[in-house]
């Protein structure tokens, strides 16, 4: 059977490169056929979901085809009593959450742009939002995967139960693989109940040292926030969200107020509407900016990160913003455009983070800045092993070649 294809258009561009051919399979079988055809025609192929994270990593070295997953948008199986759902990769996060809400459940992932971002793309790009504070990433929630290899072979890993150690963990191996190991055709996830109550508390105007202290005190005080985020550039506004049963949310909110007192900070419990708009502001800051960089270090290193990484970029680019997750040691800096000296500032920020044992990855950049930047920085220490994995699963290096760290 031949699978439908069409010529690429401007809307199909991957980092400004327009593919000659676009596939839009509507089933795993069609996706497999499309990849077999790509194999036969020696086409390099990039998988595109919502296209929200195409800027992560390096531009692919070749682009013979784009495979769009938008028509793979079904909920394959939903077992509310088991809190397990299997979906096709192209379903948007918002559509999935919508179909879970009736059973008072959710997939505990909240990357920005949920209306566009697809589940497969979220797994492949390891996208996350503030809920990572409590629930981790898709790595902690995925339990099964169907993938289509570069040669068109369809393979399953994991299953549809949470606890399962049979065979290698292919589902987790796909997390963050950026479409370079295989197409995620379906994914199965563990779900969580929607919380009865949610409270967001705002601690405005924290210096970097207070942000670090907040993260440490939350841990020491045995609080279990669902989300902790900061927005701003020294000082930072911190938001802490508690979710769960009403009694627990109330008690934890009161305890946080005491911690804020120790830090000399105000602590305002936001009413529902201002709370929602604070998190919308957070999401917008995560999505904005011609330049977006992901920063990783240890939570205790935040003062150094603020000074030498966030500060370096902000000094070079007016209008920069930072959104971070202080209990995780992760954050994103964005800048509206690539100004003079930005590449050098990013280099300095990266050097500072790598000295700390961390990293700086490019998630978005205009072409001229990209040309001056390494998207990933220092080669991963296990690069040879990563190359070997790629060579086994995609021996002709046709899946988003060069996009992954180390030029894989």
């Amino acid at each position, binding site marked *: 059977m031949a699978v439908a294809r069409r010529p690429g258009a401007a809307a199909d561009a991957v980092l400004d490169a327009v593919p000659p051919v676009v596939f839009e399979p509507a089933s795993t079988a069609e996706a497999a056929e499309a990849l077999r055809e790509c194999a036969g025609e020696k086409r390099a192929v990039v998988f595109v979901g919502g296209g929200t994270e195409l800027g992560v990593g390096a531009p692919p070295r070749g682009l013979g085809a784009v495979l769009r997953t938008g028509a793979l948008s079904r909920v394959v199986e939903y077992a509310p009593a088991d809190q397990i759902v299997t979906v096709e990769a192209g379903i948007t996060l918002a559509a999935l959450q919508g179909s879970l809400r009736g059973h008072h459940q959710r997939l505990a992932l909240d990357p920005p742009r949920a209306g566009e971002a697809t589940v497969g793309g979220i797994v492949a790009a390891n996208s996350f939002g503030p809920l990572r504070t409590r629930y981790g990433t898709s790595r902690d929630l995925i339990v099964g995967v169907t993938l289509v290899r570069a040669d068109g072979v369809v393979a399953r890993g994991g299953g549809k139960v949470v*606890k*399962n150690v*049979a065979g290698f963990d*292919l589902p987790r191996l796909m997390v963050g693989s950026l479409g370079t190991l295989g197409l995620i055709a379906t994914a199965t996830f563990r779900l969580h109940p929607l919380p009865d109550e949610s409270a967001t508390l705002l601690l405005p105007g924290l210096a970097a040292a207070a942000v670090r202290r907040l993260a440490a005190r939350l841990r020491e005080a*045995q609080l279990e926030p669902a989300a902790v985020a900061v927005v701003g550039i020294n000082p930072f506004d911190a938001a802490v969200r508690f979710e769960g049963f009403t009694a627990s949310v109330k008690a934890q909110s009161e305890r946080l107020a005491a911690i804020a007192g120790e830090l000399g900070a105000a602590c305002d419990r936001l009413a529902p509407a201002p709370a929602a708009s604070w998190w919308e502001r957070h999401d917008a800051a995560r999505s904005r900016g011609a330049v977006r960089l992901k920063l990783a270090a240890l939570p205790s290193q935040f003062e150094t990160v603020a000074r030498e990484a966030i500060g370096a970029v902000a000094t070079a680019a007016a209008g920069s913003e930072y959104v971070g997750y202080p209990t995780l040691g992760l954050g994103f800096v964005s800048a509206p455009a690539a100004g003079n000296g930005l590449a050098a500032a990013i280099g300095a920020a990266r050097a500072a983070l790598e000295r700390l044992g961390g990293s700086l990855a490019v998630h978005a950049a205009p072409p001229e800045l990209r040309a001056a930047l390494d998207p990933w920085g220092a080669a991963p*220490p296990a690069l040879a092993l990563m190359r070997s994995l790629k060579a086994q699963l995609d021996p002709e290096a046709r899946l988003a070649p060069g996009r992954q760290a180390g030029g894989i």
Partner: protein
Amino acid sequence: MSTRPGTHAAAAGKVTAGVAARMAAIVGARNCISEASELSTYECDGLLAMRVAPGLVVLPGSTEEVAAVVRLAREAGLAIVPRGAGTGLSGGALPVPGCVVVALSRMRRILAVDLENGWMRVEPGIANLDVSKHLAPAGAYYAPDPSSQSICSIGGNVAENSGGAHCLKYGFTTNHVLGVRAVLADGSVADIGGPVLDAPGYDLLAALVGSEGTLAIVTEVVLRILRKPEATRTLFATFPTTDEAGQAVSAIIASGIVPAAIEMMDRLAIVAAKAATGVDWPEVGAALLMDVDGPLAEAEFTVANAERLVRSAGALEVRRPRDEAERALMWKGRKSAFAAVGRISPNYIVQDGVIPRSEIARVLGEVERLATEAGLRVANVFHAGDGNLHPLVLYDGHVAGQQQRAEELAGEILRMCIRYGGSITGEHGVGADKVLYMCDMFGRDDLETMDLVRAAFDPGRLFNPGKLLPTPRLCGERPGPYVPHPAEVAGVAERF
């Protein structure tokens, strides 16, 4: 004791006197075992039914020594079987003929602890419980708690992706390992992951954790450490039958509660636990033991809510421990239930399978029907929250034909788990024991893809050949009986 042949791959090379001498030079003569009488200690792990004598056992003391051992074994064409504490239940550390067993038991240091950032670096030979004991004064702990945690090693936990009763809320080993230092099949040393999250590149840890010693030898592990929850509340409830207990589990989960642990025992298991530990449990059809934890207000609210739910599901009696001692006794009763089954049956086979949680009542009914047809009894103790069954098939090896019927029944239960959309193993691993069932659970293309992952790490199939992934030749063979581990018989360790 009955033994059955290991379902190993073809033996590789043979340990010559020259190789043994060179190995001894690497690790020191007293850490190199080549005498047949001493090698017998290492001829099996917790799966005693399968035994194979290794060619040589080495106990290296450092990453460099492990790397040198691997390089020499590779040069000599010898298979390598890594080994932790030897408590595994699937034959993951079963030697292959003529292999070198690399036992990590001497490497048990704690190398670094960072409480503020929530991680520590340890060597793989350290016992799981010793990690948490070390952290206890600081109010921190390592979450995965396999029931053998007093003796099983962190390295073995990494190999098996070990779980435990409390993984329902906190996840498995794979959710708590941030990085490793590993010796690869070419003898090189790789650092994978680390305390800082989201290192660029592939998530190789995902492949490594749970790889059962087939990909690399881990010589250092970076563990995520958690602050202890502020409060834990425990609830014990009895029911007329497993039907009501299963409904209670469903009601608790449906209410939005995420218990730290929720365990079920049926009548036979309760009888056995009472005989072994003296807990004053009534001999009812089923019992649940549940922990909830978190901030005090959360734990108090949740346990009260859960009590209401189990009562309306038909609980006969609900108990809350008065103090930590009573709580510990409840958990001791639960954790010793399996070893205790030895008191009500001369022999038994332990099974480890997973089903969707909502199917518990139906599956237990089917297990009972299968047991009745086979003329055997099955005791059930399991992690109800995640549908991880541990049926114990009881039999008397002195009665002609019973052992074989028990083996067939245990296998039939696994195939039933697959039919219900579950798994052939929730926490014990595939190892040598269940390698044949991989063909039932996965298709050819699935297994081939996993084999590509293996080839990426170990193209020569040097590490633990014949484990985890079946060769087509092996599909169709059938597994055998359970024999208790000596540590279990001695009461040193519990099985689950």
